[in-house]
């Protein structure tokens, strides 16, 4: 069934090919599509529509109405068939039961309690290359940092960070379908092993917490535990790494913003919000559950909905000077973490990781630039333009350099 049905996000629905995308500013390309109503494209064969919602009001209509715009994955009833993600791929009211279990572990208070540990990991990484005067930001920092934080939180050995970074790369940018399947099996195996160990010997970590949780007066099943573990793993690593990459690229090429932030670290929180708005990396997708319409566009049950949050967050009717990056923008009611019941579970963790990265980096490296004059930016994950929901636009590499005090001595 799964293999027979054509992907609802088939590349032929594209209206704008990758050649039209500016690698360093895919957001601008999205904006060129926006301005009208939702963009409709018919999918060959099965006659289902695919709608791109590109402005703030359309996005809000859809994401705040899960009864009509569903996240439910058809295969949920048989989770063994596919790599299903709980609770991201179920609708309310079932969704709410899982979120009630998970929310306390990711609440602002819980994240604040982890801040010293997050800061320690961040500082350790920066100091590992500080004296060198240069790094390849994506490999040396952007992936390692959130992955280390996550492994420690879940209960996995942080010495396996490099291994899990590789899993993240292969899951989101697989070399082939079988490569993707292999990495899913490897992730599942690590999770099974972890839950198995914690079942007999609980510790103070998220895995043990999940094992202690009950839903409808019963413990979570092995499949539910795996599914939740997968979601945490998939949703939290690539996204933070990508946002770090765009944020630090921005600071490298915008000396005024870099200096302002280095001199006034108290601006870090508002800066994080503006990075999240200006460089939004998430694309939400939904399925129309019952016939409806947005802006007069008739949508039929079964149609696909793609909501890239990037153009939404640069919608001029919602944000003042929407095209400008403003370090101390206030108010900044962006939707970088989505909207409605599926609001990113890890949003408070991500915000904290990003803020600490800015604070600790700029305290040690207040001045830095793109490291190689002949560096040509390459980015992956520009596929939202081709209609693939979960891809995250990501710099493939980012060489940075700075004056090292050690080197100068």
């Amino acid at each position, binding site marked *: 069934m799964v293999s027979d049905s054509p992907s609802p996000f088939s590349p032929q629905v594209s209206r704008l090919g990758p050649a039209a995308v500016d690698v360093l500013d895919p957001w601008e390309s999205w904006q060129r599509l926006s301005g009208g109503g939702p963009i409709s494209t018919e999918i060959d064969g099965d006659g289902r529509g695919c709608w791109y919602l590109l402005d703030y009001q359309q996005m809000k209509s859809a994401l*705040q109405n899960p009864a009509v715009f569903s996240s439910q994955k058809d295969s949920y009833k048989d989770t063994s068939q596919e790599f299903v993600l709980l609770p991201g791929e179920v609708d309310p009211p079932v969704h709410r039961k899982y*979120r*009630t279990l998970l*929310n*306390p572990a*990711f*609440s*602002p*208070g819980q994240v604040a309690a982890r801040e010293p540990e997050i800061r320690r990991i961040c500082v350790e990484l920066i100091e590992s290359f500080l004296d060198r005067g240069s790094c390849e930001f994506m490999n040396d920092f952007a992936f390692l940092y959130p992955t280390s934080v996550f492994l420690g939180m879940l209960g996995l050995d942080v010495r396996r960070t490099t291994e899990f970074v590789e899993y993240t790369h292969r899951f989101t940018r697989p070399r082939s379908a079988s490569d993707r399947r292999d990495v899913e099996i490897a992730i599942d195996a690590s999770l099974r092993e972890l839950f198995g160990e914690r079942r007999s010997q609980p510790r103070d970590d998220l895995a043990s917490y999940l094992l202690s949780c009950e839903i409808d007066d019963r413990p979570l099943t092995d499949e539910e535990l795996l599914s939740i573990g997968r979601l945490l793993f998939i949703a939290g690593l690539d996204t933070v790494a990508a946002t770090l990459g765009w944020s630090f690229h921005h600071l490298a090429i915008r000396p005024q913003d870099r200096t302002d932030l280095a001199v006034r670290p108290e601006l870090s*929180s508002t800066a994080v919000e503006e990075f999240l708005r200006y460089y939004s990396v998430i694309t939400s997708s939904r399925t129309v559950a019952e016939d409806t319409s947005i802006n007069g566009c008739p949508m039929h049950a079964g149609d696909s909905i793609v909501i890239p949050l990037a153009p939404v967050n640069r919608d001029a009717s919602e944000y003042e000077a929407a095209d400008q990056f403003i370090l101390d923008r*206030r*108010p*900044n*009611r*962006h*939707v970088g*973490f989505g*909207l*409605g*019941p599926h*609001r990113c579970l890890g*949003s*408070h963790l991500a915000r904290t990781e990003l803020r600490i990265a800015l604070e600790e980096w700029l305290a040690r490296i207040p001045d830095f630039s793109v490291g190689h004059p002949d560096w040509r930016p390459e980015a992956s994950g520009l596929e939202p333009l081709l209609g693939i929901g979960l891809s995250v636009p990501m710099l493939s590499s980012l060489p940075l350099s700075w004056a090292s005090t050690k080197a100068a001595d």
Partner: protein
Amino acid sequence: MADHGELTVALRPGLCSGHARCYAIAPDLYPIDDEGYSALEPTLVPENLRQLARTGAEACPEGAIRMDETATKAG
């Protein structure tokens, strides 16, 4: 701008999704529960906190916080 009248803030049912942006701006005015969702009861905002209350309410991406401003009746 001088404030006249009263400001009450309250939660619109079913909209809070735990962004906690109100709490980030004014934790004392906008308490959250263990899940990180708003625990706001309808609150008459003290005069000196009205601007902060508005900023906190306006920060909500869901529009989950209702502001009821009542003007003082003249004379």
